[in-house]
């Protein structure tokens, strides 16, 4: 556990940080839930907002039903939904001694590491136990009890699923800080440090055999807001 956790802190978190140097979140606005990217809620420095390519979006669901954005351009907006789930990818990444490039490793010399980055963002706007059930595809991080009943300083238990099954040994972060790995039942408790926007992320790395990258790096972020 100790060695595995330290390894995860050192490698998984490090790789995850490279893959997503900025955060994605959904902002409730009059025009709808708006997808932003940047450092507004990040613990490290950077621009408040950073534009993104709307083509990042691979799929969107309200509950289990597929939905489309309200507009096709930046920033993407979605109709309000109790559980909105977005699948995004920034594609392949390759790190060399000189740079990190947003491309597959094919044909690139002196590759140190390479990965494909996939991110899922789940936003809950209210508590309903049915909303916390896994949909059964990909990586999911969900609360096991009502998070809206909590305040800053309280602990929330979450459960991580992969393909609908509890996923053990997955690194989970609060904001940008890794807080541990999930147990055999996929569960872990995290302390909510402040009011406002909450972002809890699970990151899992698996080997890739497509020849374009060494590993697939998947991150699922659970987002909800607590009153300030």
């Amino acid at each position, binding site marked *: 556990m*100790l060695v595995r956790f330290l390894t995860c802190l050192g490698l998984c978190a490090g790789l995850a940080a490279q893959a997503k140097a900025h955060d994605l979140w959904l902002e409730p606005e009059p025009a709808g839930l708006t997808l932003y990217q940047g450092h507004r809620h990040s613990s490290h420095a950077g621009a408040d907002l950073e534009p993104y390519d709307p083509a990042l979006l691979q799929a969107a669901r309200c509950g289990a039903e597929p939905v489309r954005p309200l507009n096709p351009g930046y920033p993407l907006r979605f109709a309000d939904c109790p559980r909105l789930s977005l699948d995004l990818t920034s594609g392949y990444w390759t790190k060399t001694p000189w740079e990190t490039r947003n491309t597959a490793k094919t044909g690139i010399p002196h590759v140190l590491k390479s990965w494909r980055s996939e991110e899922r963002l789940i936003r809950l706007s209210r508590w309903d136990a049915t909303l916390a059930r896994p949909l059964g595809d990909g990586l999911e991080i969900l609360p096991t009890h009502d998070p809206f009943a909590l305040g800053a300083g309280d602990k929330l238990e979450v459960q991580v699923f992969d393909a609908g099954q509890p996923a053990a040994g997955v690194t989970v972060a*609060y904001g940008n800080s890794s*807080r*541990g790995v999930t147990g055999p039942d996929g569960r872990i*408790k995290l302390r909510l440090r402040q009011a406002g926007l909450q972002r809890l992320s699970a990151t899992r790395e698996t080997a890739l055999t497509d020849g374009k990258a060494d590993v697939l790096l998947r991150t699922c972020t659970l987002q909800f807001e607590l009153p300030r």
Partner: protein
Amino acid sequence: MKRPLALLIALIWSAPLLAHHGVAGVGAAALEGPGAPIESASSATLPAGRALAYLKLDHAEYKRYDPTAPEADYARYWMTGLGYGFTPWFSGYLFVPYHDKTDEPGGYTSRGWADLALMGQLGFKYDGRDGWQLNPAHESLDDLEDWHFTVFAGATLPTGNANARDSLGQIDPGKSRGFGKSSFSLGASAAKMLSPRLTLNLEISAIRFQEYTYADGQRVKFGDENRLNGALSYRLLADAERKFRLDGVLEAQYLHLGRDKADGVGEAGTGGRMVYLMPGIRAYLDSFSIALGVKRPVWTRLNESHLQQGAEGKEKYRLIFSVSRLF
């Protein structure tokens, strides 16, 4: 009976029962987890199915007063140990001590393996949401911020030579390498992260001895030992890439020693109360933990201080070093 200093040195043999104190390296379950003391009891149990190997040196250098008579010079208490996590909340330990108690030239120097010690440790915690519970198998860094507790109990086995004789053929119980009978320890500890970098550790413990009749007919019962320890550890730096962490530690130890009894009568020049302060460091590298501290008595109320050269409370300093590795 004679040599109060020797009797008092023997009291330090209680160290095996408390040797888990240095095992505290496992208390830092991650680079950002709680810190651990140098010598006092940690409130961390071993992970289930994992073993811990441990080595500790306690080097005591004594103040000397009489240039015309051989006095206690120094003592080195080596301790090797093995621990195993039977469950996430119960750990067992076996300690094998080796003692080297050296007098000035003309005195009696005693070296050898001392009594084996066994110890069990039960770990539990308090979580504001789930209440009291035995230590779970998996805890996040946020779980590790909760109050953690242990109760521990142990006993020595009379495997050391209690009836070793000096050059004159006499038995000095204080220099013997065993108590002749088992001694017993009981204690409790508590730990809490006060901030992301600062951890408080507390310990209360006691050791009780049995009367033993030596081969020459003398009956000795060593005095009770009661301890109250507190430690603050502060994370100075952590390097996730190198799996390295360095903590500064400040430890305060209160020790109450009861008076020894020889043939049922209280012995002069034994027992007392004292407070030690020990600054030190603890470093973690992957699964290794190394601790180093220098301990000095800062307050003493010995029963007959002028007779207690070589006793606890009469050290110039004690150097505490330990290294442990989790397998």
